[in-house]
């Protein structure tokens, strides 16, 4: 009986080791989606007019992108959809487009201190 028990424990241990953790399809999809979202956000943040506005406010692109990078997948998705909504609105309000976009970005990544310092 004891032997049987011991064998069971050994087997359980072995099963844990041998249970290969392949990368599941869901994980693949979400990591690809994250990468694509990051690329789209980067392309917006790297725009010349946006960069200019950011530097006027004393914020570097790196700070913004680092913050975006730290977001969870769902935060990132929400950020991106808000950003694209902002861009749609920005088209209609072309005059203040870049300023608006920058304020939006800063608001979304939580660099709110900027408003106190200016």
């Amino acid at each position, binding site marked *: 009986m004891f032997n049987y028990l011991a064998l069971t424990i050994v087997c359980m241990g072995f099963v844990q080791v041998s249970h290969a953790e392949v990368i599941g399809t*869901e994980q693949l999809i979400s990591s690809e989606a994250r990468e694509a979202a990051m690329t789209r956000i980067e392309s917006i943040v790297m725009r010349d007019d946006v960069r200019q506005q950011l530097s006027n406010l004393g914020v570097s692109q790196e700070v913004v992108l680092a913050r975006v990078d730290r977001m969870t997948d769902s935060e990132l998705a929400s950020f991106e959809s808000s950003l694209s909504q902002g861009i749609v*609105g920005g088209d209609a309000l072309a005059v203040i487009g870049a300023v608006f976009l920058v*304020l939006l970005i800063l608001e979304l990544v939580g660099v709110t201190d900027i408003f106190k310092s200016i």
Partner: protein
Amino acid sequence: MSHAGPRRPAHSHIRWRTVFTVFAGTVLAACSTSPDTVRDYGALTQTIELSDTPFIPQERYQCGPAALLTVLSVAGATPPLDEVVERVYLPGSRGSLQAEITATVRAYGRIPYVIDASMSAITSEIQAGRPVMVLQNLGVSWLPRWHYSVVVGINPLADQVVLRSGTDARRKTSTNTFLRTWSRSDYWGLVVLRPGELPANPEPQRYLQAVAGLEATGRYHDALSGYDAALTRWPDSTIALYGAATANYQLGQLAPAIHYYQRILVTEPDHLSARNNMAYALFESGHYVDALVNIQEVILRAHEDDPLLGQYLASRDELCARVSIIDPPVDKAEGYCTTAGE
């Protein structure tokens, strides 16, 4: 009458919203009626109604479970209502969350597919025999009254939709009113598919994501049927191939798993997740050295900022640990486990 109160996703940009509204209010004011692209009935010219759809009257506040059981039972899953209530109903908020609804659909081995935001998407599903569960807001945006119901019929001539709604077995609503209430949930609409069944107008990414949810919850047989169906429609879809490979692997069917991973790697040799999993499939089928060659290749090709790098390294450690205890020792294995660069 019912009050479902799904928690809307928390937005971190409420303040921004306010700012935006002030600036853009005039621009957006024109958007309060649904655009023609949403209203369009598609190819439908005649009245259509799925009269066989069961009617499950809701109890107080529980329109979510009742509507969900309606669409589940059309897809052949008929759990008792109590059980569905337990899974999706949140007494605190007197309602159900969309995420809990899709999770429950998966728990019954069905695929929850969120349809496109249009009348024609509903029409196509109904024409395919599937009623559509929808989330409506019967109140106004600032005083919401969330409600789940099921669209079972459309009459394009009278501009009406027919709903199983609350305690109404057959509520007729004008399309305009319906669209106004539906728009406030961002047109959230769900169909329940049997594994192997595709939606009327499937969007590949969204469909495969729904199937991947089945795989992630351990329903490998159901997931495999879903991926197989995807491969009949999109034979070269990398995600569908990957899913079919992974579901096969999890079912211990190593030959088809290797076949599908191989199909990805032929066209995308840098698909590191596929190569990582390929290493496992080869290892399990006794091709130890091939497995180690592949996992070493993954680590050599990986960028240092690859979010999955940690996982690749863990894979190599695991496979090397396992090969080291194989008796008799595997020829040449040592080399792949000591020289791999980190």
